């Protein structure tokens, strides 16, 4: 696929830029709060992967479904989750998307299409098939995108899901964010095949590896997969090569990540690259800064709101277990 040959119009570029910066500013804010000791929760940093999520979400329609992982902040915020509710959930507050009962690893917001955020590596793929199966059954035209990391490609559910999706030609897009680490294990130490996308051929579906730091590669590849799914032609696997610039979770040791590799990958940082693209498309520094300022203000207000929000009532532990118990 000659993805990099595809042009992206200015409106879409602006859309992707805005989503990317929303992901990035959310990530920076979260890390700042953790560093300041204002919050103490599990957070899976997305620094380095912002563009992949943003460009992928920009390729979807509003009512398309998304299944993501505990490192799903990018998909969630880029898909448009209401950020006050998002912060509320991450801080375990009653105002959160899930009343504080899901948390950072289990964000659900059906209004935004965020159907499942799973804390179990690879578990999202079989579920994405089911969402897509429902769309196929009732002909609603929705596409389901499931995001996962390179580590997920080695669990059984990945293979079962890929086979089943292709068998039924389900409208699903498998998006592998190959961030080069499965928890603390480097790609080469958990997988000996050169990439994940080549596995698609084994199931008879298209697979493509793209540079996850290049908007002109990620967006067209995901868009083509989404369009294909929507036309009823079945699933695709898109592998976006990116780099997790920090440890597995915030605060965890990442001495296993070689400093020289970190430095090398810093040069591939998707954010300056995207900014350069924007400037090349005649967006001004002022315009781009103003977008970021607006996002920062929105996030600051959302965080203040979440910090001040009430905790869920203790009675919540008895609710939502079974419908009949409510």
């Amino acid at each position, binding site marked *: 696929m000659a993805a990099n040959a595809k042009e992206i119009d200015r409106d879409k570029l602006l859309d992707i830029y805005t989503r990317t910066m929303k992901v990035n500013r959310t990530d920076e804010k979260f890390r700042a709060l953790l560093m300041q000791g204002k919050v103490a929760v599990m957070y899976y940093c997305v620094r380095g992967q912002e563009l992949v999520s943003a460009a992928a979400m920009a390729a979807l329609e509003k009512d398309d479904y998304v299944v993501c992982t505990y490192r799903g902040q990018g998909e969630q915020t880029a898909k448009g989750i209401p950020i006050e509710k998002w912060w509320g959930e991450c801080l375990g507050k009653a105002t959160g998307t899930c009343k504080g009962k899901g948390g950072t690893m289990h964000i659900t917001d059906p209004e935004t299409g965020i159907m499942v955020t799973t804390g179990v590596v690879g578990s999202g793929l079989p579920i994405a098939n089911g969402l897509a199966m429902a769309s196929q059954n009732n002909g609603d035209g929705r596409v389901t995108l499931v995001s996962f990391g390179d580590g997920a490609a080695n669990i059984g559910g990945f293979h*079962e899901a890929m086979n089943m999706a292709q068998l039924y030609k389900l409208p699903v897009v498998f998006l592998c964010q190959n961030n080069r680490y499965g928890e603390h294990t480097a790609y080469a130490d958990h997988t000996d095949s050169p990439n994940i996308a080549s596995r698609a051929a084994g199931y008879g579906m298209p697979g493509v590896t793209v540079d996850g730091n290049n908007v002109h590669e990620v967006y067209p590849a995901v868009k083509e997969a989404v369009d294909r799914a929507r036309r009823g032609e079945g699933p695709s696997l898109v592998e976006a090569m990116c780099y997790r610039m920090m440890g597995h979770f915030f605060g965890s040791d990442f001495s296993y990540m070689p400093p020289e590799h970190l430095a090398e990958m810093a040069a591939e940082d998707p954010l300056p690259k995207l900014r350069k693209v924007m400037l090349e498309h005649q967006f001004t520094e002022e315009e781009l800064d103003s977008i970021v300022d607006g996002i920062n203000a929105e996030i600051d207000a959302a965080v203040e709101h979440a910090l001040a929000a009430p905790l869920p009532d203790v009675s919540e532990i008895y609710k939502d277990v079974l419908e009949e118990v409510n």
Partner: protein
Amino acid sequence: MAEITMTQALNLAIDEAMADDPGVFCLGEDVAAKQGGGVFKITSGLSEKYGENRIRATPISETAIIGAAVGAALAGQRPIAEIMLMNFVGVCMDQIVNHAAKLRFMSGGQTPCPIVIRTTTGVGVGFGGQHSDMLEAWFAHVAGIHVVTPSNAADARGLMRASIDANDPVIFIENILCYGLKSEDPGPGYRVPLGKAAVAREGSDISIITYGRTVLDALSVAADLEKEGISVEVIDLRTIAPYDEATVLASVRKTGRALTLHEAVRPFGTGAELAANIQEKCWDSLKGPVRRIGGTFSAVPFASHLEQAWIPNKADIVAQIKASVGKD
């Protein structure tokens, strides 16, 4: 009214639910006509009627089957997933326990997961260690799931219909040895509410709390012991979790004695939970300790005499009852 077998009862309930609600569909290994309509023929005739999108024959991929059921349920459908034999649930426990059971709770009530997981099992058919286990306690231990098992064809029809109606996941356990049992057909629309036990036989000296195939043993023993002047009440839980505590406790308060009976192995089985709860809540009514009968704590053996020795039998039940009522 005509008699139906449990196989027919389940088929009728599913057929009827599919006719009533286009969101109901089945998926599992071999379930469509081309593959023979299911190993035990429960979905026989349905793919011809509803098409292969609604009776989806799947690859041998239990994780993908349950995952697909979960996803479809989140999107508003009502999938009925078949896991051909209960031991294979081990392959897809992540989807059942971490996802189906928890998504209602973890989403703060936004994404209920109405799926029925049909599965078959049972000791006594010579299937050996990996096709015979009763694993209901695994699921009873997880919040967010109903665990259901019928002991007769009429209940099978009503419980299946209620399970498909339920807005939460249901593990529906079918004992292979019960498939041929016949009942009067309760007719279309029949439902047995989840969480309601049946007093299968009234009695005054001791309560047997049981479910599934062992209800038949309990009823047979009760009939025999009546001739010896021992009056046995048999409670068929029908829904194992969450179970009908009120009916169980009322029965034990009446008889003053209790025996739990199941095919699953005895240690850490559902009988242990029932016994503990009865002793906590009916202590003043009890005339003796609650007794428990369950399968032997080993894998289910193949050779038929070993298999028969493994399974709780009527002689065990009679002996325990006589010991409990002081007539041993």
